[in-house]
């Protein structure tokens, strides 16, 4: 057990160190993704300013939504699918199999380290935006102060977010046991992410049927769930319902991963292609 813990800690520190080395990739990510978000913010701000009854979302609340959505979007490690698939296809997985630390946990820690480092680098940027944009900081603090349990809920939401984010991409990467390339399924996952995560539009403004369908997919819990939780837009019962569904989605993903791993590892050939 000690050996396992020690190797896990070493692996985790190495992953964080490696993630920190790629700071420039985060800067490129922020610069490129921010441009797209400027479009969302401009469009929705105009829409909210034009709405006849401003009871659903005040314009500033919509700006806050997209700022927070940008933060949660920034935590996504889209390369994780490719990394896992490459390890399987190239045969690199073979070396991991003889190491003391199990490969699925190693992959999990690698993705977690990427998200962690990104959050450390993104938080100051988001804080500056909240502070500079007129009225945004007030809107943010008002959202947080709506209920004493908002921060607690957000903590739980983030656990679900991180687990859904990592497990979904790991499960998709395991498709490489059966497929020569996972580029196709990965692109479908990305488009599903855009359609149901709330990164393009606030999910609580979507039609009921879409909200219902999306809430049974892991992508809903990657952006929409933590963002709406932090904004205090769920009632207590709504939060419990979505948190429950999120945990159910995680359980299903875990079962899929266990089944795919157990079947795949039996057919895995270390030769690679």
């Amino acid at each position, binding site marked *: 057990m000690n050996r396992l813990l020690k190797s896990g800690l070493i692996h985790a520190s190495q992953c964080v160190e490696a993630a920190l080395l790629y700071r*420039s990739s985060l800067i*490129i*990510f922020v*610069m*490129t*993704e*921010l*441009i*797209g978000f*400027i*479009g*969302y913010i*401009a*469009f*929705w701000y*105009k*829409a*909210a300013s*034009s*709405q*006849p009854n401003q009871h*659903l*979302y005040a314009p500033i609340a919509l700006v806050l939504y997209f700022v927070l959505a940008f933060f949660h979007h920034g935590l996504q490690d889209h390369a994780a699918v490719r990394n896992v698939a490459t390890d399987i296809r190239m045969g690199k997985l073979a070396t991991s199999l003889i190491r003391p630390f199990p490969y699925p946990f190693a992959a999990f820690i690698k993705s977690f380290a990427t998200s962690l480092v990104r959050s450390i680098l993104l938080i100051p940027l988001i804080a500056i935006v909240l502070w500079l944009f007129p009225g945004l900081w007030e809107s943010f603090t008002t959202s947080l102060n709506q209920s004493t349990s908002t921060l607690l809920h957000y903590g739980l939401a983030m656990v679900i977010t991180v687990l859904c984010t990592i497990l979904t991409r790991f499960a998709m990467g395991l498709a490489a046991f059966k497929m020569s390339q996972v*580029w*196709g*399924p990965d*692109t*479908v996952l*990305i*488009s*599903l992410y*855009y*359609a149901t995560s709330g990164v*393009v*539009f606030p999910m609580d*403004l*979507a039609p009921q049927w*879409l909200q219902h369908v999306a809430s049974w997919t892991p992508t809903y819990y990657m952006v929409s769930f933590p963002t709406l939780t932090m904004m205090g837009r769920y009632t207590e019962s709504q939060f419990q319902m979505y948190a429950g569904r999120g945990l159910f989605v995680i359980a299903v993903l875990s079962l899929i991963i266990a089944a795919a791993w157990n079947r795949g590892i039996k057919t895995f050939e270390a030769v690679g292609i």
Partner: protein
Amino acid sequence: MTTRNQVSPLRLHWSLFKRVAVVSTNNMLIYRSNLIFLFLFESLFTFANIMGLKMGVDFAGGSLGGWSTTEVIFIAFLYQAGHQLFTTFCIAGLFHIGFFVWSGRMDYVLLKPLKPLIGMHAATEFIISNTPNVLLSFGFLIWSYLKLAVSRPEPLTAGAHVALLWLFILSLAVRYGIALLVVSPAYLAEKLAEGEDAYWSIQSLGKYPRRVFNPFLQTVFDYIIPLSTIAAIPAEALFGNLSTPNIVIFSLVGMLFFMVSLGFHRFCLSRYQSVNTGV
């Protein structure tokens, strides 16, 4: 002037285009599953965008800065049609520039008796697997056009249709120009080879009506980086909201932008040193 033994450049490039299309089709049909995956990817992505735009206009009470839901959806499908054409015929050649520079394959492209950019397109493939999406996007464009035509009190004029067609062609040149601006720095430094993501983000701003943006950004997108030309201005020309002088000005801006981006590409290419590591 051509003699009997010479082939005109136009004919030469046409046969080159056909050859790339045939080779691309043969190669890409090996991966038939890509047809399904690309179809699912683009369909879901389009669904997300259109759903978002429709929700926004509905949220605004059915009119966004004077634009109805039908008009905003038409702009979105116009944007989508250009996007699919560009994806099918241009992205492989343009977005492989960084990889070719990094791996040293650009030397082989430059040795061809072709203009460098044409050489890049000839050395890569068309994304033939995306053809269903091209057809589908034009189908939706026609559908939204008919819906728009029926909903308008006055008929759309023939001149407006000509302006739409011309500005749509120009919008493809503007897309090409934006892509050139973000990929060309790859010639200057290996670390600047990741321009593709920047292209997707920048061009995504072209799917909104112009009045969505504040006056400063609107001016930038009209006259400096003509993102408005991607969809909003062609749509406005069809609706008859643009005067002829305005159409001429926006056309000149779009053409100038394209020429400047070609010049920028030429400048960066002239700095290419063929000493890349490939590691």
